[in-house]
């Protein structure tokens, strides 16, 4: 129950105003990101037609009959001034028509959604696992400070946190795939399997990229969680609780956890926001065809529709997750009045 008091009705009108304001800001942010990404993408140097038609055909047509080149440009909506294309692009977005990919001649929507599925297959378990591990280890290290776990984990996570993800990915790849041949080198599935075998096969392919992702995220979550627990442990109300003779474990679960999890939840929401963008580095090293990977190839192949779609999707997801973070914060922390 959000408001413990009936006496707070007069707040509801103010509440509605705040929510409205919040939505406006979010829509504004999305609009801003869409515009910025459109401008950035379309002003990119290099003629996208080169990638659409392929090198030799592009040069041949460019020299033999340039008007044909113009005609093809029109077909792909690359003609007209930036303004016109922008208006057309906005119109398309509202009609949820994201156009046709330049390089893979399939509709952008089903390419990106297909890739999104694979990014989520990797990112969602990674975020959940790292949230769990980060929290468990962080709480234990924070509560039993200078205990065995704390003395090992703190320096270790500090060091692991500074190793760039692509380096850890390379090391894992070398060790587990090349040398010990425990896991496949790349790709997402070995094909020709259905049902249970297919699932197991995909899980087998997922192991390495997932463990690299979980490792790097757990480290940062651990450090955050530990600092929150230490902070809360020093609060006065914990001293009161101990003074009341509340046993140590109950102090941890009833008082410390709830207060420490509050800021932790906000970071998790932010991480959920970044899920959609996928981790470019891990997806490139393990050639996991997710959003990060397709974004990387789209940029080098200057495939405008896919890039714009990726930016849009990430923006929407980030904004949704920041709203989620705010709402969660209000629900969990009664001290916050306005959303």
């Amino acid at each position: 129950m959000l408001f413990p008091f009936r006496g707070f009705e007069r707040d509801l009108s103010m509440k509605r105003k705040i929510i409205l304001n919040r939505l406006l800001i979010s829509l504004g942010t999305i609009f801003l990101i869409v515009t910025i990404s459109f401008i950035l993408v379309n002003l990119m140097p290099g003629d996208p037609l080169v990638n659409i038609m392929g090198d030799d055909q592009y040069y041949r047509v460019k020299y033999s009959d340039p008007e044909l080149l113009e005609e093809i440009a029109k077909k792909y909506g690359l003609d007209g001034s930036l303004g016109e294309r922008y208006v057309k692009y906005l119109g398309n977005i509202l009609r949820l028509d994201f156009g046709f990919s330049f390089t893979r001649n399939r509709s952008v929507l089903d390419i990106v959604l297909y890739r999104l599925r694979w990014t989520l297959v990797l990112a969602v378990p990674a975020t959940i696992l790292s949230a769990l591990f980060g929290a468990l280890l962080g709480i234990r290290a924070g509560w039993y400070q200078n205990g065995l776990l704390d003395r090992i984990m703190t320096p270790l996570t500090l060091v692991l946190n500074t190793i760039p993800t692509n380096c850890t990915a390379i090391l894992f790849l070398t060790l587990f795939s090349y040398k010990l041949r425990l896991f496949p080198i790349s790709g997402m599935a070995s094909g020709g399997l259905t049902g249970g075998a297919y699932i197991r096969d995909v899980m087998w392919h997922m192991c390495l990229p997932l463990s690299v992702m979980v490792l790097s995220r757990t480290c940062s979550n651990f450090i955050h969680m530990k600092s929150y627990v230490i902070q809360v442990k020093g609060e006065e109300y914990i001293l009161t609780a101990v003074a009341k003779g509340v046993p140590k474990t109950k102090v941890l679960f009833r008082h410390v956890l709830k207060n420490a999890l509050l800021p932790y939840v906000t970071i998790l929401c932010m991480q959920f926001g970044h899920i959609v963008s996928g981790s470019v580095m891990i997806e490139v090293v393990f050639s996991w065809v997710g959003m990060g990977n397709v974004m990387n190839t789209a940029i080098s192949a200057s495939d405008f529709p896919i890039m714009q779609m990726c930016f849009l999707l990430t923006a929407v997801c980030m904004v949704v997750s920041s709203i989620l973070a705010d709402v969660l914060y209000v629900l969990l922390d009664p001290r916050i009045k306005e959303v």
Partner: protein
Amino acid sequence: MLDIQNVSVKFSSASEVGAVEDVSLTLQKGTKTALIGETGSGKSVLLLAVMKLLPATAEISGSVLLEGTDLLSLSEEELETIRGDRISYIPQGGGNGLNPLMRIGMQIGEPLIDHRGYSKKKAIAQSVELLRRFRLGKEETWVRAYPHMLSGGMRQRAMIAMGIAAGSRVILADEPTKGLDQDRIQGVAECFQYLQGETLLCVTHDVNFAASVGEYISVMYAAQQLEYAKKEAFFEHPLHPYSRAILDAMPERGLKSNIGFAPPHDAYSVKGCRFSDRCPYKNKLCDEKKPPFIDVKGHKVRCWQYAD
């Protein structure tokens, strides 16, 4: 009821000087004692030492007998059964002594849940009774409120209710009036009157509050206990020059003295009496030797004047 014998506290991490030096205090059953002292005089540290709530870096010597058992020698588990049940500590009302994310009723009823095995619902119902005892008003509503919704004074009342929830006979209150304005302080003083039969040791820097609450008054300065007497004796004729200075500085008595009451930094390393540098009655002896704690017909004082 509670017998504090020669308790000293030293923090290994801090400088060599102790935070509390050789304090002895006996609280009779049902009596209310007020401990006056400026910040940094070690009064709060004493309270925490009694409850063994100090961090691990603190070395506590001496003994604290609660109905015969020495709290300082108990293990953490044993202490857990005693804390909140037979002796309870009330932190300052002003700060966030209450868990911001837990309703008041639950926090007050918690000792009942842990010590008396109450169910949550029963404990909260009992907390309503406790609040009513302190005349909080609209107790059913406030029980479901969160700490930030209560005013400073109301929070202090809730704290006191929490202290006696499980029926503990000895209550240690740490600066209950901190951060409160005048009429709130009066309200808190009344609360302490509502206590029936609990032994109270209240630490404060507000002399008026000490007067209205305490039956016995003690004074601490620079980690040492300077004076201990019944209230009437202390206020009529305070023996120690520091006590006299405190009383003279009160507005009711015409702000006669203004000597600055917090101990200077180097006061701790002085061989003799730590108040010597400001004492108008100082003589040669005060500088060389530390004055003992002399009992002048039940009125104890640490000053060479009264050495026979």
